[in-house]
């Protein structure tokens, strides 16, 4: 399995050069009391690739994403990021490391405008002190202008200029998802985690979202790890796929390899027990 990935990286089917290891999960086990959510899973995420984690309901995908993001600390195993072993961290420390995420159930500030929501994605990059921010003077003003410029580029990129000043609460679901992606991008992450980016979308919205994910990867070179239910979307988008079932890893490889893996087929289609 996974013969493609060598130490130096590999070249994808559409000719993109994928780099070395960005993140490595080694023998991760995560328990909630007596429940084993993740059982001895190892895999890696490489620089510049789109890596999907799939599996049936309750397979442990979201737990896995939370381990990657540092929100859960596994009882066993090691998480390596950019060549360092990672210990327990605070959320802002994770963000500073260059990891940003979106949520399965949108987590935006409903009362704030789209623009302000996206600006929050850049909080980490604002260094001005309380006083100068309150007076919007000197460093605070310069900083805000520079950050706003970056945010405007993302607004342009995701084609949401027309809702710039609209309160998020008034937007339809598909657009909220896009705003959430914008906020994650505003942090200029090296690793972008997407938790079911297409859930609840219609075909057209899914197509748009797929295009944005591919464009983000292509234009900014962002490494993307995503969880998704829609198999068609996953197989089209991702370079390599990890398949989970009941907390175990049952497959890992290119979409084609995974598709032909007997264990994966069994997990998805069910096995007769007679």
């Amino acid at each position, binding site marked *: 399995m996974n013969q493609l990935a060598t130490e130096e990286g590999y070249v994808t089917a*559409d*000719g993109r050069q994928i780099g070395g290891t960005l993140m490595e999960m080694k023998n991760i086990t995560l328990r909630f009391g007596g429940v084993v959510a993740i059982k001895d899973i190892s895999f890696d995420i490489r620089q510049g690739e789109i890596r999907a984690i799939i599996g049936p309901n309750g397979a442990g995908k979201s737990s896995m994403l939370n381990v990657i993001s540092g929100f859960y600390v596994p009882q066993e195993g090691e998480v390596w990021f950019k060549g360092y072993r990672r210990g327990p961290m605070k959320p802002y420390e994770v963000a500073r490391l260059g990891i940003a995420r979106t949520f399965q159930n949108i987590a935006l500030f409903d009362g704030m405008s789209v623009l302000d929501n996206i600006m929050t994605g850049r909080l980490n990059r604002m260094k001005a002190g309380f006083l100068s921010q309150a007076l919007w003077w000197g460093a605070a003003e310069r900083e805000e202008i520079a950050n*706003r*410029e970056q945010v*405007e*580029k993302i*607004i*342009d*990129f995701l*084609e949401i*200029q*027309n809702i*710039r000043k609209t309160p998020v609460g008034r937007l339809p679901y598909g657009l909220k998802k896009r705003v959430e992606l914008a906020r994650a991008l505003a942090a200029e992450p090296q690793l972008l985690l997407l938790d079911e980016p297409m859930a609840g979308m219609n075909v057209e919205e899914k197509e748009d979202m797929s*295009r944005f994910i591919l*464009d983000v990867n*292509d*234009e900014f070179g962002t490494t993307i790890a995503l969880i998704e239910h829609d198999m068609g979307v996953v197989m089209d988008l991702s370079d390599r796929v990890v398949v989970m079932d009941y907390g175990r890893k049952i497959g890992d490889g290119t979409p084609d390899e995974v598709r032909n893996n007997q264990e994966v087929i069994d997990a998805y289609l069910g096995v007769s027990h007679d």
Partner: protein
Amino acid sequence: MTRATTRDRGGNMTDPQAPQGELHSIPALLARNVARFGQRPAYREKEFGIWQSWTWAQAAEEIRALALGLLALGLKPGDYVAIIGRNRPAHYWGMIAAQMCGAIPVPLYQDAVAEEMAYVLGHCGARFVLCGDQEQVDKVLEVEETVTGIDQIIYTDKRGMRKYDHSRMNALSDVQSEGRAAAQRLAPELDARIAALDYDSTCVMLYTSGTTGKPKGVVLSNRNIIETSKNTAEFDHLTHREEIVAYLPMAWVGDFIFSVGQAIWSGFTVNCPEGAHTMMTDMREIGPTYFFAPPRVFEGQLTTVMIRMEDAGRFKRWLFNRFMNVARRVGPDLLDGKPVGFADRMSYGLGKLFVYGPLKNTLGFSRIRVGYTAGEAIGPEIFDFYRSLGINLKQLYGQTEASVFITQQPDGQVRSDTVGVPSPGVEVKIAENGEVFYRSPGTFVEYLNNPDSTASTKDPEGWVATGDAGFFEEATGHLRIIDRAKDVGKMADGSMFAPKYVENKLKFYANILEAVVLGNGRDYCTAMINIDLNAVGNWAERNNIAYASYQELAGHPQVYATIRDHVEAVNRSVAEDPMLAGCQIHRFLVLHKELDPDDGEMTRTRKVRRAVINEKFADLVDALYDGSGSIYTETEVTYEDGRKGQIKATLQIADVQVFGDAGQQKVAAE
């Protein structure tokens, strides 16, 4: 029509006095503008949330660099350069740069599907294509499977373009850099080509929307565009201080005249919105002084205002209604400079403070000096609404073949049912059969590769048939248009059938988006109607009427009842005109889908294609005439990405009361 040609409104630069011999092309006018208005803004575009602007001097440098780059890529004199994209300064520059190289710009509709694009690109044999973004590039690549001869593709927006084969594809900014690098080598060639342009060189080629048959390529010379721009700019005293918002399709002749012809003649500023969806916000920020829109834009705005007022609090509603009544009574007279009593002036002044001013600001009309509408008839209520607010909205009548202008309304002589007097330099005559003919400096050169059509449209003396039937009002000398000449027919009993006349009356209702009236050669008239989803949807929401789809809402009994009231009211008004009383609608149905250019039912400029509709909805037409109460139908629809689907529906057919006797028996509604 005579009027003083020099009126000094904006200082001594308003009336360009330069000798005519030097200003015979758009590039020559550009050079003049650099000398005269060098540091004034020529183009603005909102990007990254900020208005970016270019002075005439900067724009000229950008355009020259692009022209040099095009030369470097091998653009030859007489080549056709297609431009497909939204209104952006770079795309206007592309057109002027092509002209500099002696090539002919051909702007296309950006929402056209690949198939339509293939016909046009193949017809003119475009060698260069300037695309706005990846979407347009993809369409052109698809077109290339059937059309040969496309040599170079240039794109403005680099996004998503990295993985394409770049052997004959370049980003516009890279072409400009190439041009700047090669300036030394290529400048003499470019200057020679610019110098070779004269009044009879082709300025632009525009494809007609084609209500019937394939689009035709209308060739317009520098003379056509520059003379027309000059005459009409003087008519409305346009100066270099005007601000316009360029948002109408670039392929449409109006946009070319306003955003290129008049803009470069008068030296005013062209503002490009951030995108189609931000148009209203951007317009409010710019506050144009000169504005053009087809009636549906004004209708759409009015519908939005009315919907918002219905949702507003009671006090605001009262204030709005009270002062709109004042405005309706005295607003138009004030605008026309007629005497108005002191008390009314005071009320209007208060209204301005509380209602009209803020409303105009919301609509982006605070600074408007001249506004035009054309393309279709505009409802009198809509027209009066804007005029009563103090917006100088006027009508003009024109077509691509005339470089837009045939007639237009002078200030102070504006009415909703006429289209004004002949524009300066234009002669108009009415033929025996009522068809309108014109001859003007703007009259087109020819249809490309189509001498037969050219000959049948333009006679050797230069008179062009408009295809519209109309007459001059004796008292005022204003032209009135009745209908398309070929659409005017006879009913079975010989009385006149003018579908558009009735359709326009129907469309004046906010609930009705589109209507198609049938009846040529029949015993009585019937209609197919499209509801306006905005207006009807809002009504449904306020009345707690649940609906899951357009189709369901369109078929709702209460919607039918509302539409029936509208149709009856129209019948009553049609019955007043003895000549057209036979055009009253006896039966109608509400269509289950919106008529759409993608399905070929309308042109890209949203004019109904009657032949297509008669053929495509033949079963519905039959049902309207065979007396049945409902009809089951399946219709093919095309989605935006070109895929096809089917809509199935059972449509109700409603009977309507008709009025008057005029040889008709009264048919009561069952």
